[in-house]
């Protein structure tokens, strides 16, 4: 039991905008009232629902591959020293699992969605998720380059494809469906890509990226998944890719989709030297089409490591940078590429990318549909979110940051002309209420009765980055986990799953195909329930 007294509460889901009121907690949930409970005096403080990260890469084969490739970063970053109750670790670009939980909670984030899981190595992802303490976790399974599914789409067998997807979601113990460079990663298996939405994917006659996107979005809606199709479009990072992005969105024809890290998909120009921001055009489209949500995938200057299932893009990035290149193609399903990267303010392309992330956040007018992410660790590490909040809330700070940029760079972006400053209410929306709603998690992202008691309390501070980087209290499931930067408790987080019903006969269809295509036994493919920490099976919804 706990009563938070006297804080200014920001709870956008209930339209509460800085009202001083008590928040009461019992048995891990928000309740109407509690008697004789310990209190936290939050006078002069700001109370938010716990942060929700809709798109991050924190567990599984890809991030673990990146850890292997960046020991020099682990060495220079701030380490986590073991305590009598907490595990050791390293932070930095690719934090270890324990450090990941401490860093997210330390910033006030209490729910994270791992955005890219191959079924084949989903056991690995869940083993790592189990070792991320405090936060609740969900994950999205990679399906847009799954060759069994592409074959079904080629044959026009949509109904069977739907049953297969339902089976695959449960087999991987996932929460949602992710599409990465639809068709392009499959083509990458022979060193090719998929750059045209309406051209058949290499090796197919009928299946195009457009058909994969529309097919998967339809299946996700038919299955009633609480989170819409989570979509990483074709041509990520490429100058002039705005056309592809808009075509993809038009092609969805009113179906729901979450457009991942839109920053990487909002460029004009014909090549690297003419690249420019097309954020306003994309923001206009987003503003006019309410079937979409998106996350920024914002970029901050500095060192990071890029991680994506988009194998062909990573090969290009390796050729451009000449830096280390990791690649792991996953049989019949997906790929994975790793390239360390440094975003430099003096680099024209990087300067545009930095601006585009912020422009999208500032120009998309509905904070319920655009969320704060950096596509961790691609645009920047998640623990740098407070810097982005400062950029959104302080126009003068933005201007200071642009002061050193060349006229050429400034002529390619729109940020200097944007005056909008985010309010605390809007920040609470893009960091918590909005992503929770987009994920379809009814007990997250708000402080109404019945919500999970995930609450963050900030000392009011004119230095916005300091305020958001150093909460006074973080409460997870009703328990104080962080107090003034100190870790007080490290409860296990929950594993959030969905179990869309599927025809049991679908296994009879899958088994022989599997035996031909894979090198693992079909019976060893599914993730066992015992691997999920505190599993919670969430309801499917009516998407009509």
């Amino acid at each position: 039991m706990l009563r938070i007294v006297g804080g200014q509460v920001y709870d956008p889901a209930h339209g509460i905008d800085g009202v001083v009121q008590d928040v009461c907690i019992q048995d891990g949930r928000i309740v109407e009232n509690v008697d004789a409970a310990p209190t936290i005096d939050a006078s002069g403080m700001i109370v938010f629902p716990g942060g929700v990260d809709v798109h991050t890469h924190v567990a599984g084969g890809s991030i673990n591959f990146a850890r292997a490739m960046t020991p020099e970063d682990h060495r220079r970053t701030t380490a986590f020293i073991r305590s009598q109750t907490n595990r050791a670790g390293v932070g930095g670009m690719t934090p270890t699992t324990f450090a990941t939980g401490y860093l997210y909670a330390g910033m006030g984030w209490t729910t994270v969605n791992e955005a890219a899981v191959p079924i084949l190595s989903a056991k690995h992802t869940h083993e790592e998720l189990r070792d991320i303490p405090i936060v609740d976790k969900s994950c999205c399974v990679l399906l847009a380059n799954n060759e069994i599914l592409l074959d079904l789409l080629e044959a026009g067998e949509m109904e069977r494809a739907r049953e297969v997807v339902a089976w695959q979601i449960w087999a991987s113990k996932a929460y949602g469906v992710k599409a990465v460079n639809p068709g392009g990663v499959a083509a990458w298996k022979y060193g090719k890509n998929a750059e045209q939405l309406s051209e058949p994917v290499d090796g197919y006659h009928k299946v195009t990226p457009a058909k994969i996107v529309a097919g998967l979005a339809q299946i996700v809606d038919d299955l009633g998944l609480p989170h819409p199709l989570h979509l990483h479009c074709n041509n990520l990072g490429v100058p002039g890719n705005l056309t592809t992005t808009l075509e993809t969105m038009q092609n969805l024809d009113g179906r729901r989709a979450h457009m991942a890290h839109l920053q990487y998909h909002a460029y004009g120009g014909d090549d690297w030297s003419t690249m420019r921001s097309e954020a306003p055009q994309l923001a206009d489209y987003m503003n006019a089409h309410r079937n979409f949500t998106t996350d920024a995938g914002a970029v901050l200057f500095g060192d990071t490591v890029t991680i994506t299932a988009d194998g062909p893009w990573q090969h290009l990035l390796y050729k451009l940078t000449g830096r280390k290149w990791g690649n792991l193609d996953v049989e019949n399903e997906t790929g994975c590429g790793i390239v360390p990267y440094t975003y430099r303010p003096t680099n024209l392309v990087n300067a545009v990318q930095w601006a585009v992330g912020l422009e999208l956040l500032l120009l998309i007018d509905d904070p319920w549909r655009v969320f704060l992410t950096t596509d961790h660790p691609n645009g920047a590490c998640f623990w740098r979110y407070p810097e982005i909040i400062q950029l959104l809330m302080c126009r003068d700070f933005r201007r200071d940051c642009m002061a050193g940029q060349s006229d050429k760079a400034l002529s390619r972006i729109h940020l200097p002309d944007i005056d909008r400053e985010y309010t605390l209410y809007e920040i609470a929306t893009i960091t918590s209420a909005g992503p929770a709603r987009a994920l379809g998690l009814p007990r997250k992202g708000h402080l109404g009765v019945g919500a999970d008691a995930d609450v963050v309390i900030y000392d009011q501070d004119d230095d916005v980055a300091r305020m958001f980087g150093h909460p006074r209290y973080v409460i997870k499931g009703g328990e104080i986990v962080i107090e003034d930067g100190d870790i007080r408790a490290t409860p296990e987080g929950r594993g959030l799953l969905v179990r869309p019903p599927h025809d049991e006969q679908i296994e009879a269809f899958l088994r022989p195909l599997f035996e031909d295509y894979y090198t693992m036994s079909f019976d060893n493919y599914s993730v066992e329930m015992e691997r999920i920490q505190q599993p919670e099976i969430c309801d499917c919804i009516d998407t009509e």
Partner: protein
Amino acid sequence: MSLTIVDNATCAFCGCVCDDIEVHADEHKIVAAKRACILGKAWFLNHTTDKHYPDALVDGRETTVDEAVQVAADLLDRADMPLVYGMSNITCEAQREAVALAERLGGVADSHTSL
């Protein structure tokens, strides 16, 4: 004696980790390992439920696991820089515990990879 058949058993002998082995076992030993290679077969068929070895030894004296665990904890805790080494022929779950122990001890965790 009843025969157990484990289908899709995994051979942990070499790095191929083939998981399509059909293992036939009675209560005492493995009697067949279908689809396993010559190395895998030898490995599977080499094991029984017999107690060929004492539960535990401390300074060459047979003892209980409980006592040996306590002595091991004493020796490792007393050390300034203990080493936890090997980890090749154990499960990931055991590896995870071994790393946690090395961390608690303030020692070194290392595997065959370092050779």
